[in-house]
Every structure is written in structure tokens, then in C-alpha cells.
């Protein structure tokens, strides 16, 4: 997706870049309010998360997305809002990575990726917050050969051979 033609997210490139400057003051991760707020993630959050995580996220991930959104600060977190817009605007992964590195948004992006992949995160007080066990993306990323522990893996003895279609 070319940023110059991406108007559906309601944000143009210069506005995004201006936003990056505006959030520079938000140096810290501020999810404290998220623990008690239950808000739906905005439209585009799954698409942004998908781009940042490198895993396709369809609507079946909506509840998990809401949990991540809230755990990371939800609507009160200006950095998170900018990150979501930014991730939708930059279709090119390398360019997006570059922008994140040169802004102060990389920690927020990494917090988002970590929450999605690990299935849990920590709130501002350092308390662990569960996102999802089965939907943690570390398992989705490896779904061609494994699944979360505690889920049946297949018929008895499936582990003696490489996964279907794979070699060692």
C-alpha cells in the first residue's frame, strides 16, 4: 500500500510525521489506565498489528486485539494511537521499521508485538496481564509444526516424523 494513496485511515503522511513529533514527549509506556478500561480497539488496529507482527490477523482475533489495545493503554495512550495509524500508512515493512527506529515509537511497537506474541504483558505497576494463551502469536508463527502446550498435537506418535510436508 502506497502511503500517498492511503486515505482510508484518515491520515496523511505529513500528519503522521507531525504526530510523531507531537508524541516525542511521551517517553514512557503508560498503560496504567488500561487495566480497568475495557474498550474496543479502533478500526485498523488488527491491520496495524498484523503488519507489525507479520502474521495475518482476521476478525477472529478481534477480542484478542481488544485485550492488547487495552493492556497497552487504549484510547488514552497517544503513542499507541499514532503507532496504529503509522503502521497502516507504511505498507513497506522496512520503511516502517526505519520510521519506528528514528522516532521514539519503537518501544511502543515492541510492547505491542511482545503482547501479541507472548500472550501476556505487564502493566505499569509490573503486574502480569494475561492477553491470551492459545492465541499467542508465537504459536501461530510456528503453526506449521507445533501448537500451544496443553493442546492435543495429533495422533499418537506424530512427533516421530517431521511435520507434514517438512523435512529435517
Amino acid at each position, binding site marked *: 500500500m502506497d502511503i500517498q494513496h492511503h486515505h482510508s485511515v484518515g491520515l496523511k503522511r505529513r500528519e503522521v510525521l507531525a504526530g510523531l513529533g507531537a508524541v516525542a514527549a511521551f517517553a514512557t509506556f503508560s498503560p496504567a489506565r488500561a487495566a480497568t478500561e475495557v474498550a474496543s480497539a479502533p478500526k485498523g488496529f488488527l491491520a496495524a498489528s498484523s503488519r507489525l507482527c507479520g502474521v495475518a490477523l482476521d476478525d477472529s482475533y478481534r477480542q484478542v486485539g481488544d485485550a492488547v489495545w487495552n493492556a497497552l493503554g487504549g484510547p488514552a495512550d497517544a503513542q499507541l494511537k499514532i503507532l496504529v495509524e503509522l503502521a497502516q500508512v507504511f505498507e513497506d515493512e522496512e520503511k516502517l*521499521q526505519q520510521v519506528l527506529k528514528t522516532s521514539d515509537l519503537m518501544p511502543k511497537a515492541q510492547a505491542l508485538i511482545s503482547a501479541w506474541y507472548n500472550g501476556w504483558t505487564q502493566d505499569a505497576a509490573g503486574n502480569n496481564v494475561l492477553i491470551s494463551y492459545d492465541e499467542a502469536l508465537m504459536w501461530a508463527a510456528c503453526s506449521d509444526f507445533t501448537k500451544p*502446550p496443553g493442546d492435543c498435537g495429533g495422533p499418537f506418535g506424530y512427533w516421530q516424523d517431521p511435520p507434514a510436508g517438512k523435512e529435517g
Partner: protein
Amino acid sequence: MTANIATQAPAERLEADVAIVGAGIVGGLMAYRLASAGLKVIVLESGPVIDRVEAVKRFHDIPWGSVNAAYKTEPYAPCPPDDNPSAFYGQAIAQGTPPTEQMAFGALYLRGVGGTSWHFTGHAERMQINDFRMSSAYGRGVDWPISYATLEPFYEEVEREWGVAGAIGQTIAPPRRADYPLPPVPISFMDRSVRTAAEALKWQVLGYPHARNSVPYDGRPQCCGNSSCHFICPIGAKYDGSVHVEKARQAGAQVLASRVVFDVVRKADGNAIDHLRYKLGETGGEGRIFARQFIIAAHAVETAKLLLMADGGRGVANNSGQVGRNLLTNVDNDVSGYAPLPVWPYRGPVSATGGITGLRDGAFRSEHAAAATFIVNSGSNGDYHGPTDEVNDALKHGLIGKALSRRIHDRTARQVHLNSAIEVLPNPDNTIRPDWTRLDAKLGLPLPKVDFRIDDYTLAGWRKVWKRDYDVLKAMGATELTPSPYAKDAAASLPSGDAALVGGTARMGTDPASSVVDSYGRSHDHPNLFIVGTSNYCTMSITSPSLTAAALAVRSARHILETRGRG
């Protein structure tokens, strides 16, 4: 500080033919055998009833947890936390202390109906022939008062009760008279990948015998590779102590949870035991149980603690002074890295389906400790948290998007990990004691205090297996290996004390001056008191301890039935 537990009017009074303390693998099996013979049996368990469905849910809700995550620790029955067990054991070890002086003791155990077996690996090895005769064969440690041949028929009984899977010639085991009750659990693709490299270095890879169903057995389903055995088996394909606790209940035994026994009281005339005193976990009220015979099967840590805290801290069954001594365990070593090609971890039973042999037994045991090596199916993350380490690694590299997901996938698929458990010999200075300066918050009972170190024999065995495991992964072409045993600073490394095996503390023997019980677990000091379990072990070996404890339990139960009424 000494014992000071106030006496209360009993809120509960029980009577039985046999009172059993501990509803784990040993207590459940003995209760089943004795209740099936028509005796009135009551089992008192300090911890709560463990519900499998609730435990699985708890496991899912705490993905950052470790092996005890699935289980609720009740304040009246505290047990070591995953994150700092040595603090629970009252150890405060100054940095730089040599392990030959003091070493962190990291063994975990559970208090609850079914016991620690809820999260055991499910490996069901018999001890090796020479494990029973270490002194005679190798001039190390001590001999047991019984031999492998004595125990073999009881191993066979337990293997049928549990449904042990294996195959002669394919499975790690001493020589045996009959094949396994169940067909073997196949080794994993990762095992086979490691085997190619190991065999090139003249080491052999074999499968482990398993207490997990390779076919449906005894009303339990066939294993489907949930890969969570070390937390919990969600379908009950892996055997655990709750199986025979339930069988005991069906045979008429009464099983009462949340009863914390804290005193063993002698009869006024003679040495026989009259009754046990216990606390009701929920209310703190006191109960008493009177019986003709008593069995303490409460794990090597809690058993020793109970015997020593009894009788106002003067102790029972301890004329030898050996209760709480000779605490046994294994120490651990891990080598991991990345195979050149995918080995597909996180599939099949964990921790392992296969292992590298060659250092389990042999003439070398006169020089250095034995070691058991496990090819870990659950990747390089010791706490079985899956690819979490790879997620964090990718983030450290500043990756996002598909580059990140590809890296996580590719590195996870190539994780290869060898874990070795190394033998520790008995040492009377390695002890468990009740610590009257540290009391639990709910009932005010002492926590266990550990004093533990290893010797040069264990360290020599550790160095040997560390090099062997490193060489195997190197031969496999693995990269990014954990620190090399050949590095200049390798001497500064130490093994880990995290092995889950615990034994000793009430060892068996023929001499009442140097042992706590006879070979049937009967106290030398109290004719109607039996102490049974891994606490009876004279040496620890490197075999998974549960099967041998169960065989001792069956032998002891038979002895109780055969000798009952003879005074």
C-alpha cells in the same frame, strides 16, 4: 528456638486400621492395596484436592509461570515456589561460595491429592542393578539392604498398575525378565537427529520407558502429544498419583484433604505409635487419628520434617539420629544451541522421549558420578515457555513484521537442547530440618530448612557429561551453543541444583544405628510405624525415582498384610 505448638481440644477424631499420611504415588498405591484387602484405611493429605480441569485453566491463565503454575498453593500447605525454591528452604548462600560448601537446593514438590506426580516427567525407569550396590561395585556411597532382584517382581506389578510403555532393546532399562505391558512411545524426530551425531561419537540414543499411555489403558486415553506433561497432562494419558488415590477410594479408603499432620504421638506404654495430630487446613482446628498401623509417605522433604518436629521437636523414629540426613538429589546441566536444519521441537511428550546413554552406569562410577541425558522436546526454554526467547531475541534485533515472524519460526524450529541429571552421593551433612525460626503464616508450622552441598565426585561427573553433550551438539553442526566446557573460564561455571528428584532423609538399612527403617519401610524404633517412599533411598542414582518408590510401596503393603496380627 524450639517447638511450641499449642494443644487444642480435637475438632475431629478418626479411627482406622491403617492411617496414611500423604496422598501421592506411594500413599495412593498403598491405600489401594490395603483397602482392597479389607482394611479400614484413612489417608490424610496436607494439600487440597486437585481438579484437573481447574488446573489446566490455571495453567492457561499463567503463561509466565513454571512447573507449579497449574496448582494452587494453599497457605496451610506451603511448598517451594518456582522462582526461588532455595529461599523457601531457608538457604542464604553468599556469592562465590563453592558448591562443595553450600549449594542452592532447587527441587520442587507439590502438596495436594496426587502429589508431585501431577507434574512429573512420566519417565518410568527401573533403577539399575548397580544402583543398589554402589559400595560393593564401585567403592562409593552405600549398598541398599535389597537388590534389584528383590525388587524386580514389584517393578513388574507397578508397571502393570501404571501401564508402562517400552520395548526391550529400544528402551533405557536394566535387564528385565518380561517385556513392558504397553508398546513403546516412539522417540521424536529431534531424538533421531541427535542420534545421528551421537552415534558418530560412539554414544547410543534410546527411548525412555514411559508412564504415559501408548495405547488406551486402564480407562485412561492414549497420549496425543499435548507437550505439557511437565506442567500437567490435560487428558490424563500420563499416569499420576491421583489414579490410585481414586482406586483406593473406590476400594473403600477414606481420603481427606487439607489435613496437615504435625505430630506423631507414642503410646504411654512402649514404643508403638498411638495417634497422629493434625491441623485442619481451612480452620486451624486440631484433629487426631488413631490406628493400629501408620504409614508416612509425605515426600522426602515433608516426611523428614514431620518426624523431626514430632513430640515437641524431640522427634520420633530417630534413635539413629539419621532422620533428615543424607538428603539426596541430582544436579543439572544444560547445553543448547541451534541445529543447522530444523529438528522440530515442541512436539510430543516433554521433557523427553529419548536420551543419550553411556554415562548411566559403568566402571567409571568408581571415579565420577553417573549422568542421565535427556533430549529435550520442549526446546531451549527451560521453563517450557515455548518460543518466548525467540520473540525477545527478534525484538532485541529491532525486527518487525514478516522478518520478525520468519526469524522466530526459523530459530524455534532449530532449537536443540540436552539436559543432563548428575548423581549426588549420600552425605550425612546434607539435611532437612524443621526451621522453628520460619513458620508458615496460616498454621504456624515450621518450614523445611535445607543444608546441601555436592562433592568432587559429582563435579567430575558433571564436567564429563557437560563435555559429552557439548561434543554431540557440536558434531551435529549446532551453532550458538551455550558456554563451552573447553573455554578458559569454564572452571567458573557450576551445575544447577534444579533437579526435581529428592530422596534420602529416612533411609533403609539393616542396622538400626545407621538407618531409620528396614527394607519394608518399618521404623526400627516403632513397630507399627512405616515410612515409605523416596525417603528410604540409600543412593539416588540418575533414574527417575517414582517407579522405584512405587515398587517399594507395593512391597511394603504386601509385608504389612502378611505380617499383620503378628504383634
